[in-house]
């Protein structure tokens, strides 16, 4: 079936993986020097969305909590960064983590009561958050600038680096996105990630094995909030302007769409999904301005039918056509068998986990796949 067969954890496997990541890194760093400012601006936007979608992906894909409020946290992060820059002389690299801290705390404050709710009701309460944020922004004029918005002093490129402003914004966003991606991947492989998957797949069983369910969920809400805060701050830097119109209810839907299109239960999927939700409406608008939403909506539905495991699942299937990675045959007994999750993490370039849906049995989800 596959062209090549290699052993997981072997030298060839590790070299291949390192090579692919190196190639991806070179391409990503090279892109802004070979494309026009509007493409760079769009990709910067994609990255700000991707960071927020990653946080939501942790919440939805790993813990099975459907949240429609990510857009609200994104807005709060954007405004926190923008108003810190506008009202104080804070350097922008400091405003970014501060914005994340603000949304982390708000996420925690929101998460502690919200973890009592499940599934649909949680979705509705978070929907309330997404609806409420617009009017509150408009009213809190001294901080947010009201309907007229706030303009943001965009990060200037350092003098020693000969790059244009749009290239610098792209590179800055790239570095931040890469850091957040690594943190998320690390998180899902660590004890918190295992606790989250345990909660998703069986809350009571997780509790029995010593996972503090409500504390873990509340913490995850805060982490997802912090991700949205970072994404929002990147958005504010990239756009150079924040106004209430940028943070509609549709934005929260967009993040959820990005997570599902990218693939549940994968971190890299959020990035792929963000490419989809930014570029598909744009291309659709290029085909026919009035039909933008028709094409976008129809594509979104089609993706659910045609690739239920998302873009990340599609990539994984393609890779399997080329390269088959097999587990090493246990020739001699290993001194200490690694935990199952550590093994899983090794043989895939992306952290994989069964993209089982929230609160349903995984078999039903499997039945969905073609």
């Amino acid at each position: 079936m596959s062209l090549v067969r290699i052993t997981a954890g072997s030298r060839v496997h590790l070299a291949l993986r390192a090579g692919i990541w190196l190639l991806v890194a070179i391409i990503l760093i090279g892109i802004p020097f070979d494309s026009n400012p509007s493409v760079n601006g769009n990709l910067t936007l994609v990255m700000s969305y991707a960071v927020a979608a990653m946080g939501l992906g942790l919440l939805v894909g790993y813990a099975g909590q459907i949240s429609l409020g990510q857009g609200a946290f994104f807005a709060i992060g954007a405004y926190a960064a923008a108003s810190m820059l506008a009202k104080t002389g804070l350097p922008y690299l400091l405003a970014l983590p501060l914005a994340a801290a603000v949304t982390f705390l708000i996420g925690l404050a929101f998460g502690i009561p919200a973890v009592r709710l499940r599934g649909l009701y949680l979705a509705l309460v978070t929907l309330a958050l997404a609806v409420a944020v617009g009017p509150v922004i408009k009213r809190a004029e001294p901080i947010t600038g009201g309907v007229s918005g706030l303009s943001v002093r965009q990060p200037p490129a350092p003098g020693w680096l000969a790059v244009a402003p749009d290239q610098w914004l792209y590179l800055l966003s790239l570095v931040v996105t890469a850091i957040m991606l690594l943190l998320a991947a690390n998180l899902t492989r660590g004890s918190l990630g295992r606790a989250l998957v345990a909660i998703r797949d069986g809350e009571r069983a997780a509790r029995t094995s010593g996972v503090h369910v409500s504390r873990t969920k509340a913490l995850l809400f805060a982490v997802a909030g912090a991700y949205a805060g970072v994404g929002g701050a990147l958005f504010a830097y990239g756009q150079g302007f924040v106004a209430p119109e940028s943070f509609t209810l549709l934005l929260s839907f967009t993040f959820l769409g990005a997570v599902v299109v990218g693939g549940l239960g994968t971190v890299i999927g959020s990035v792929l999904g963000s490419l989809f939700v930014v570029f598909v409406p744009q291309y659709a608008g290029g085909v026919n301005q009035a039909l933008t939403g028709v094409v976008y909506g129809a594509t979104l539905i089609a993706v659910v039918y045609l690739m239920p495991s998302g873009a990340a699942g599609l990539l994984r299937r393609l890779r399997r056509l080329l390269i088959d990675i097999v587990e090493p045959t246990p020739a001699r007994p290993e001194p200490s068998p690694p935990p199952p999750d550590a093994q899983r993490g090794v043989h895939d370039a992306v952290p994989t986990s069964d993209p089982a849906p929230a609160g349903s049995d995984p078999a039903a989800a499997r039945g969905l796949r073609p």
Partner: protein
Amino acid sequence: MERFLQVVVDGIADGSIYAALALALVLIFRSTGVVNFAQGEMAMFSTFVAWALADAGVPLGLAVVGALAFAFAAGMVVERVLIRPVEGGNPLSLVIVTLGLFILVNSAAGWIWGFNIKEFPALFPGGVAQIGNVSLSIESLGIIAVLLVVVGLLWLLFTKTPIGLAMRAAAQSPSSARLVGIPVGRMLMLGWGMASLLGALAGVLVAHRLFLDTNLMAGVLVYSFAGAALGGFDSPIGAVVGSWIIGVTEALAGTYINAIGSDLKVLVPLGIIFVVLLVRPSGLFGSPEVTRA
């Protein structure tokens, strides 16, 4: 006091419109287990159909009936074509399909009828009815009457007719229903058709008050969500009572609390559902979720 009563009745009238859409959401949630985020947009589209018919010279009453019939058929088609293939699977897939439908229908309506605001003819005569010292708008009273009739009809359908019984059975336990010979798929289609019809009813009732454009139902949908969540998402009575509570508190807060005014009054119902759901996570009338260990 008179003013207070007027505000309350207007609030109940608004709440009745939310209730019609909330009933649609509850109907679908009970049968399919999914929240149809596109419910409001489907209603908006049907309202445009009514407007287009009336604009083409069809008498208003006939235009509304035509739009309701269209909504019924469209709801059944949506269930059969879009929802059936992913039914019973990943709930998130269903959420995304309805979100996709939301975007698609909204844009399609704008493409067909344009994005300008249109005036929708009034379904009820203007003016007020004088009851003692209180003057209540005839439109408000009419809307409340329509909702009460609808609730009565739904109650009759679900408790007194074989088809209502079959629909309840199909919703409660599809596999058992299938075993006793109920065409479950057709019942689900019927449920979606009825939900779509209820939504369209909310649309034509509200269109005169809010004016008609592609964003007609987005705000209403949020209030209907709040009403349904407040009442408990699996309880039709809860949806009506919850929506009334939302409508009345919204009207009272907007009128009597100055700091809230008209721009922040959306926060009042949202605050209420937040508090209620924290105390009673399954809503006022909903049945608590029971899970097997």
